């Protein structure tokens, strides 16, 4: 029976596109012709060079350190906050939820700028003050190294870990914990012997997921590390394909991208295994009440201080310093004299015409990409969850890969295909469409993930009752299925729109003056050395972006608990 076969075909299109892009990376890694124009003769030269080059191993080592530290910080912070929210009598947990969901949307470049101003080599305020006060070398403390960038990336990923772990803690039956309480285990014993082991599969899954996101991330190592040649995987690939001078190269970055694809496959398999083990821990459930909360008492103030401290590190400090830099005629350490020199010149001189063009492209993308992503994501999750198609496993895996494979790899593959293969047929390079396609292929995976949660909840009986009642597959979709998942679809649409609005990674590879996005304007201004103007524009960006996000959150928190987990790349 091939019920809904057209849907399998539709879901197969983005899955096939992802597969083609991955195959394009293999193709690129084998090209040994003229460096800037991929083509034959084909050989293993780049792969061999990659494997024997010490630079490759340095970059991979940096990425490992960077991603490990980021994951550790994210998991520790996210687990701690999730536990406090789920298991204690902390007042106003919904505000912590809302604040962390908002933090999930903070574009990586913003804290990266702030932390660079605070602790960057040569420019960092802390370094300069220490130099003035104690004569320490200016670079005594800096974050422009893999552990430092990992720290900032870790702060950014705390909300992601939180939204992954919170539901896992919530689904632990309260009775499992109370059984420990009444049978004499202390809180510490309960945590160590019961709670931790029970959520271990979920923690492992969340750790793998955070690690994949961290290892692929671009913005923090891009803003902080690129200038100082502190490369992680994504910035290294960027550097090779967009060198500051000389010809772009495709073979060597493709060769190293192969490593990332292999690693992504392995991590994806490990992730799915961890999820399956978590499912095996689902036992008979009783009433779904929460266990009696741990009474914080006087520790409450400390918990609030810790959560508040986190927001100082992730948004308030960066906001203060970015604002400071935006108001300075040139970069200076805060002082009375500096305050007197405050000026709005950066705001006046920023390249507004370009920013305006960028904003209009970003807006187009924010409208179109989520529509396509949610529509395709809905069909794909129906195929994966409900259909019996033999392709569903492959579609599921391929549509998950954008979580694991760095976005910059897809962008590079798409650009080279557009430039050297598709250009005679469709001139894609330099259009907003190519950026839209790249975003779509990435965000469809987020759509599939959040829609699957809703699709699983639609009992098959409801659909089958429609078939028995004589409705065609198409009518069942529109009359029964869509109304039941429409709220989830709307949520996913808004969420993806917000992610598209702040997306930078793929745009940096794909943009030209003709299709530049707003975050890419901030990026390119930064790298012309105009830190003040870039700061001014990012402030304007945040001033528009955060209120929109807040409106979304406000309507979302009306319902008490988010039913699907929003995720972020």
């Amino acid at each position, binding site marked *: 029976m091939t019920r809904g076969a057209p849907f399998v075909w539709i879901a197969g299109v983005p899955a096939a596109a992802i597969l083609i892009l991955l195959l394009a990376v293999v193709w690129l890694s084998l090209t040994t012709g003229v460096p800037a124009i991929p083509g034959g003769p084909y050989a293993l030269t780049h792969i061999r060079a990659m494997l024997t080059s010490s630079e490759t191993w340095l970059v991979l080592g940096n990425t490992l350190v960077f991603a490990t530290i980021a994951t550790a910080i994210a998991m520790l912070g996210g687990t701690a906050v999730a536990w406090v929210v789920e298991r204690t009598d902390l007042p106003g947990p919904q505000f912590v939820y809302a604040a962390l969901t908002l933090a999930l949307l903070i574009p990586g470049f913003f804290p990266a700028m702030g932390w660079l101003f605070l602790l960057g080599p040569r420019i960092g305020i802390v370094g300069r003050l220490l130099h003035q006060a104690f004569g320490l070398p200016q670079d005594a403390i800096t974050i422009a190294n893999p552990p430092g960038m990992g720290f900032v990336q870790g702060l950014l990923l705390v909300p992601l870990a939180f939204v992954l772990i919170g539901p896992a803690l919530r689904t632990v039956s309260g*009775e499992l914990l109370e*059984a420990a309480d*009444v049978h004499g285990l202390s809180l510490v*014993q309960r945590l160590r012997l019961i709670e931790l082991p029970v959520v271990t599969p979920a923690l492992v899954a969340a750790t793998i997921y955070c690690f994949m996101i961290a290892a692929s991330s671009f913005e923090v190592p891009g803003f902080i590390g690129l200038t100082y040649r502190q490369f992680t995987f994504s910035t290294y690939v960027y550097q090779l394909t967009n060198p500051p001078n000389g010809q772009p190269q495709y073979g060597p970055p493709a060769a190293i991208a192969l490593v990332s694809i292999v690693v992504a496959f392995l991590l994806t398999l490990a992730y799915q295994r961890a999820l399956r083990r978590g499912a095996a821990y689902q036992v*008979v459930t009783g009433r779904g009440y929460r266990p009696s909360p741990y009474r914080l008492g006087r520790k409450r103030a400390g918990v609030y201080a810790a959560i508040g401290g986190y927001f100082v590190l992730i948004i308030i400090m960066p906001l203060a310093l970015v604002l400071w830099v935006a108001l300075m005629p040139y970069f200076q350490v805060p002082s009375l004299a500096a305050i007197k020199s405050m000026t709005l010149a950066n705001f006046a001189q920023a390249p507004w015409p370009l920013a305006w063009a960028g904003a209009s492209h970003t807006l187009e993308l924010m409208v179109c990409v989520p529509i396509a992503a949610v529509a395709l994501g809905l069909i794909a999750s129906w195929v994966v969850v409900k259909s019996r198609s033999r392709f569903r496993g492959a579609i599921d895996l391929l549509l998950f890969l954008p979580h694991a494979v760095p976005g910059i790899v897809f962008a590079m593959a798409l650009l080279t295909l557009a430039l050297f293969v598709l250009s005679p047929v469709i001139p894609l390079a330099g259009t907003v469409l190519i950026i839209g396609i790249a975003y779509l292929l990435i965000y469809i995976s987020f759509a599939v993930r959040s829609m699957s949660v809703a699709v699983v909840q639609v009992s098959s009986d409801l659909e089958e009752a429609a078939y028995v009642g004589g409705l065609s597959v198409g009518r069942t979709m529109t009359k029964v299925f869509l109304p039941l998942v429409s709220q989830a679809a709307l949520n996913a649409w808004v969420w993806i729109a917000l992610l598209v609005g702040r997306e930078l990674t793929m745009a940096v590879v794909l943009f030209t003056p003709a299709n530049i996005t707003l975050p890419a304007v901030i990026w390119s201004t930064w790298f012309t050395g105009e830190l003040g103007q870039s700061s001014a524009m990012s402030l304007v960006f945040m001033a528009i972006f955060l209120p929109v996000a807040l409106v979304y959150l406000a309507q979302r928190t009306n319902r008490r608990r988010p039913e699907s987990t929003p995720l972020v790349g």
Partner: protein
Amino acid sequence: MISVSGVEKTFAAGGNAVHSLRGVSFDVVPGEFLVAIGASGSGKTTLLRSVAGLEWPDAGRIALRGETVFDAATGVDVPPQRRRIGMVFQSYAIWPHLSVLDNVMLPLRNGYLRMKLDAAQAAAMRALELVGIGALAARPAPQLSGGQQQRVALARALAVSSDVLLMDEPLSNLDAQLREDVRGELKALSSRVGATVLYVTHDRAEALAMADRVLVLDHGSVLQIGSPAEIYDRPASRTMAEFMGRVNWIAGTPAGDGRVATPLGPLRVAGDVARSGAVTIGIRPEGIGVRRAAPGDVLGANAVAATAVSVQFLGSHAVLEADAAGVRLAIETRGTALPAPGDALVLDLPPERMFVFAEDTAAAPPAAAALPV
């Protein structure tokens, strides 16, 4: 052994304060099996969790083994970890990451008992043998059936404390046949180890079958506490009577001389009846005797003529609906030759099977004019 006095608990639900427990008091004597029964929302689970220390009442006092573990007035609140109780949860709460043996051993090793490995292992094995699943000791918890999980939960509770056991609807996740089997076993086992049990359920049959005494909770208040027979045959109120099973109600007025005038004619009732005011007579379907009317029947005292309206054969018994002078009565009978609808019947309403309540003029809660007759 378990002593609860004046326990009050209010929950805030959507801005409204909801009384979950209103001044609940009772004692469970050593070795007793007390079943608290109530509909959902009656407060029975809150009561059990308060005894366990998982919920904090607003007022009242709770003592275990004569020792106060909670007293709102003095602020005593012994945490659940130190109340030394065994508890069986509705979901069984079998820790999924551990084997059967480890589930039982973990509290023995890490709880207040702090047993050494050998001792804990031996104690856990004894408990598992006791509930008849010693052979499953090494099995991982997720591979257990519902019935097996239930036994592991029981073994764990017994291993930790064989004197005070709390059970929260432990059979509600089992299928019907298994539930009946386990019911008897559970009762026998707890009396064998001499446990004092507070058992919560919403299942009437379970309560009647297992309890030494039944405590009936309704909207947070104790309706009645007594032996299963008392609860069933001598309910303290109309609500109480209906809670324990179906009742036929017949309105009447006292006619003196131990008689009540009813639409069915005068009925003799046992005991004293209030002189004035309306009364209601209750009689359970199985309390009414039934036979087919024969020509020339002379109706004796408390026998009334009726017509069969419908007959439902249910295997072990049958339920008749009969019309007697315009009053619909349900009758349970075990006879083999069942009447057909329309047949003329004679019903016997023996005085000792009736309960008579003075009719409260106010429609509010039925006054506990307990006149067990």
